[in-house]
């Protein structure tokens, strides 16, 4: 709805203000007059008139706005709201938010805020940064869109591939936000992941580039595990402990087919490779029977293509499955020794997990404690606390064993 209004009124802040007023009008009128036949059309149409009102109020401050208000008024016509133009508006909005003239950080923040409606807090967590910083990025980005004349449109065909990378990055961040919600009590927020997958499908339709296909495959394959990721009472289940009968075979079949399509194109990149790893997991009957050497091999290629510490961390976890936990700990320690991922909770929780398997309980406890200070997510907190309790029990047992030995 916001996307449509931005197209109609041509200004982010004006559209937001107008939508806010349209909702206020709905709260007042709908209970009195009944629900309109098409609530969406009603809100958009009311929003557009509210935008004109807002502009009129601004007229005495700025003469040029008067002209804009006149133009907007002249352009008021019946709104047709088929699904297609709606999706076009979304796409227009996402390409504007991901414009390369905006700083990369701001592109992500703006899209998550404007297209997906995430809060500044949630964006800050996904970014590993402070909410204040994110808010500033959004304000500055909106100012640049307005002042530098960044158009509200899908780029020309010859510019699309270049502009697509930034969009894919943003879509995947949104998916991750939905897959592992950063704060609050529910681990998964299905609406956000569904939103990201919807955007992914739309992009594949618009521009069937290998990486767009690869990203969609990756999201579908991760989504296929959703039901197995948490217990009925909301506790987190690691990939190795998941009940694979709960995996969604339909999503897996679609994801695997898309991976094959992406890899065949020979122009694949990091998303297609990550999707290939997810496909290997999806097709393995158990964690132990997974083709770990092949997964490590794909991670080797990935690290060369996209040297991100998070990918190195995932590679370390795969190496731990292939060569044993000690090899994994050594790799994670090397990443941390470089000063990277120090504030990334999953680096510490993965390290804790491997140390636990090695029986190095005191070190495992310290690692879990560090992870615990970095999580805002209630389910992850409970998971980590559970892990720490299991260590405590072990320690008591070993203490008892030790004291028995002393007595003997």
């Amino acid at each position, binding site marked *: 709805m916001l996307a449509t209004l931005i197209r109609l009124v041509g200004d982010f802040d004006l559209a937001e203000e107008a939508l806010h007023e349209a909702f206020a009008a709905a709260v007042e009128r709908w209970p009195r007059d009944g629900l309109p036949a098409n609530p969406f059309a009603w809100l958009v149409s009311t929003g557009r008139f509210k935008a004109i009102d807002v502009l009129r109020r601004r007229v005495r401050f700025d003469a040029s706005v008067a002209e804009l208000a006149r133009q907007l008024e002249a352009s008021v016509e019946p709104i047709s709201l088929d699904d297609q133009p709606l999706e076009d508006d979304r796409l227009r909005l996402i390409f504007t938010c991901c414009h390369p*003239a905006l700083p990369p950080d701001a592109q992500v923040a703006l899209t998550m805020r404007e297209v997906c409606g995430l809060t500044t807090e949630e964006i800050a967590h996904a970014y590993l940064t402070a909410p204040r910083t994110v808010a500033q990025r959004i304000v500055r980005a909106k100012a640049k869109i307005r002042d530098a004349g960044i158009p509200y449109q899908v780029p020309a065909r010859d510019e699309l591939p270049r502009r697509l990378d930034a969009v894919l990055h943003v879509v995947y961040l949104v998916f991750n936000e939905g897959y592992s919600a950063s704060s609050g009590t529910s681990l998964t927020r299905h609406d956000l992941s569904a939103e990201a997958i919807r955007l992914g499908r739309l992009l594949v339709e618009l521009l069937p580039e290998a990486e767009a296909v690869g990203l969609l495959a990756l999201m579908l394959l991760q989504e296929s595990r959703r039901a197995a990721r948490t217990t009925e009472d909301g506790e987190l289940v690691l990939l190795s402990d998941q009940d694979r009968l709960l995996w969604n075979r339909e999503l897996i079949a679609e994801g695997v087919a898309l991976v094959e399509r992406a890899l065949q194109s020979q122009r694949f990149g990091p998303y297609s490779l990550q999707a290939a790893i997810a496909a290997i997991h999806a097709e393995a009957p158990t964690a132990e029977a997974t083709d770990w050497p092949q997964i490590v091999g794909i991670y080797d290629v990935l690290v060369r293509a996209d040297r991100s510490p998070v990918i190195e961390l995932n590679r370390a976890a795969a190496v731990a499955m292939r060569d044993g936990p000690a090899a994994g700990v050594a790799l994670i320690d090397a990443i941390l020794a470089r000063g990277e991922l120090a504030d990334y909770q999953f680096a510490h929780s993965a390290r804790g997990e491997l140390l636990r398997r090695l029986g190095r309980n005191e070190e495992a406890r310290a690692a879990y404690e560090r992870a615990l200070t970095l999580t805002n997510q209630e389910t992850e907190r409970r998971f980590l606390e559970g892990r720490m309790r299991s260590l405590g029990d072990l320690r008591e047992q070993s203490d008892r064993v030790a004291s028995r030995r002393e007595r003997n």
Partner: protein
Amino acid sequence: MKYLCLIYDEEAKMANMSEADANAFMGEYFAFTEGIKKSGHYVAGEALKPVNTATTVRMRNGKMSTTDGPFAETKEQLGGFYMIEARDLNDALQIASRIPSARHGSIEVRPVEVFN
């Protein structure tokens, strides 16, 4: 919207060009300028003499001070500009990317402020 395209390039590199290369480069500039005049994007454009001809002026407490050289020493120097009329930033960036110096130097694209 009006945009100012500030052309930054390494003067030393330009000065060391062979005569044939320099002529070819100037030819590209003439062709580019003709092109944007025909398409209606051109508002104004000039090349500047090298930074060693620059003088920076300041008035402080009613006193004028002048110093030799540009306002800021940079690796690439301001060597010229185009003022263009463009539909939006995408249009402006597309034109700026065709300025011959964009291939070795940098073009800073700045929207022009409008006061009422």
